[in-house]
C-alpha cells in the first residue's frame, strides 16, 4: 500500500519538522513582541496543517479504494476463472462450502439409509436359516420341509451375493462422497487468505485514520459498553470454539460438560 515510511502513530516527518520549526519561530516572534509576524506564523501553521490533512485524507481515500479493489481476487488461469465466474465473492464461496458439505452429508446418509435395511434383512434371514438348519441337524425336519429349506438356502446365497455387491457399491460411493473435504478445504483456504489480506488493509486504514485524527486533534470517546463486551452468556450462540484444548473458558469435550453439570448438581 506504499506507505512504508509512514509508521503507526507517527506524523509525516516533513509535517513534524515544519510544525517544530514554525512553532519555534512563533515563540521567538511572540517573545520579541512582533505580533504581526506572529499572526502570519499562525496562519502559516494553519496552512501546513490543512495541507497535511488533505494529504492524509487523500492517502486514506486511495487506500480505502485499493482495499476495496483488492477484495476481488483476479483469476490467474482459465480454471480459476471458471471457478470464480460461479462464485465472485467470498460469501458466495462460503455458501458453496455449505452446499458441498450439505450434499456430501446427504449423499452419504442416503446410501447409509439404503444399506442399513439390507444388512438387517440379511441378518434376519441368516438367523432364521440357522435355526432351521439346526432343526435339520437335530433330525426334526420332514423331507418336504427340508426341500423348502434348501430352496430358501439357495435363494439366500443368491441374495447375499447381490446385496453384498450393492452394499459394497454404496460403501465406495460413501468413500467418494468424502471428496468434499478436499474441495471445500481449498475454497476455505482461499477465503482465509483473502480475509487476512483484507485485515491487513483495514489495519493500514485504521493507522491512516489515526493520522487524520492527530491533525484535527480529534479524540474519540468510546462508550464503556463498547470497550467491555458483555461477558455473560447471551441468548445468541457463538458456533464451534476453535482451540478448545488451549482455552480455560471452553470445555474440551463431553466429559468436561458432564463434570461441569454434575458440579452444578445435575
Amino acid at each position, binding site marked *: 500500500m506504499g506507505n512504508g515510511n509512514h509508521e503507526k502513530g507517527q506524523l509525516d516527518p516533513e509535517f513534524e519538522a515544519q510544525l517544530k520549526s514554525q512553532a519555534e519561530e512563533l515563540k521567538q516572534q511572540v517573545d520579541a513582541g512582533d505580533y504581526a509576524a506572529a499572526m502570519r506564523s499562525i496562519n502559516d501553521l494553519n496552512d501546513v496543517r490543512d495541507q497535511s490533512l488533505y494529504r492524509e485524507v487523500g492517502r486514506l481515500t486511495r487506500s480505502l479504494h485499493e482495499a476495496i479493489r483488492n477484495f476481488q481476487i483476479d483469476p490467474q488461469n482459465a480454471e480459476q476463472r471458471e471457478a470464480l465466474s460461479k462464485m465472485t465473492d467470498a460469501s458466495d464461496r462460503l455458501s458453496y462450502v455449505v452446499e458441498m458439505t450439505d450434499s456430501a*452429508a446427504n449423499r452419504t446418509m442416503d446410501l447409509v439409509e439404503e444399506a442399513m435395511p439390507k444388512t438387517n434383512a440379511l441378518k434376519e434371514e441368516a438367523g432364521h436359516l440357522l435355526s432351521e438348519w439346526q432343526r435339520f441337524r437335530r433330525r426334526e425336519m420332514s423331507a418336504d420341509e427340508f426341500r423348502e429349506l434348501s430352496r430358501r438356502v439357495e435363494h439366500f446365497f443368491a441374495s447375499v451375493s447381490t446385496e453384498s455387491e450393492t452394499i459394497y457399491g454404496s460403501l465406495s460411493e460413501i468413500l467418494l462422497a468424502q471428496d468434499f473435504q478436499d474441495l471445500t478445504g481449498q475454497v476455505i483456504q482461499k477465503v482465509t487468505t483473502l480475509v487476512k489480506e483484507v485485515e491487513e488493509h483495514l489495519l493500514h486504514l485504521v493507522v491512516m485514520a489515526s493520522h487524520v485524527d492527530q491533525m484535527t486533534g480529534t479524540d474519540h470517546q468510546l462508550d464503556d459498553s463498547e470497550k467491555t463486551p458483555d461477558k455473560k452468556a447471551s*441468548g445468541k450462540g457463538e458456533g464451534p*470454539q476453535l482451540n478448545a484444548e488451549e482455552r480455560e473458558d471452553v470445555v474440551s469435550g463431553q466429559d468436561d460438560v458432564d463434570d461441569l453439570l454434575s458440579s452444578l448438581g*445435575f
Partner: protein
Amino acid sequence: MKILIVDDFSTMRRIIKNLLRDLGFTNTDEADDGKTALPMLKGGGYDFLVTDWNMPGMSGLELLNEVRADDNLKTLPVLMVTAEAKRDQIVAAAQAGVNGYVVKPFTAAVLKEKIEKIFERIDS
C-alpha cells in the same frame, strides 16, 4: 413418544433423527429454529425436545426460556445438542433449566446415554 428436533442444519437434524430411530424413537418432527419450533410445541403432543443453540431467528437458549415460561410446557424435557462449548454457556443453559447438554461433535453412544439418563430421572 413424540420428539421435536430443532436445528438450523438439515444434515444435523437428519443425523439426530437417524440416531433417535436407532434408539427406538420413530415419531419425530423437525423445526429449523426456535421461532418455528415454539408454535409447534405450543400446539401440544410433544414429549421431548432436542435443540441446537446457535440458530437464526430464535436461538436454542431463547427457546428453552420460552418453554420454561410456558405453563403447559415448563416440564418438557429438553436436551441441548450444540457446538457451543463455553463454560459460561453451559452454566447458563443449566440455569435456564436444560435437562441434558451434549456438545458437538458427539457419538451415538453419548446421545443415547444422555437421553436414557433424562428419562431415568423423570421416571424416578
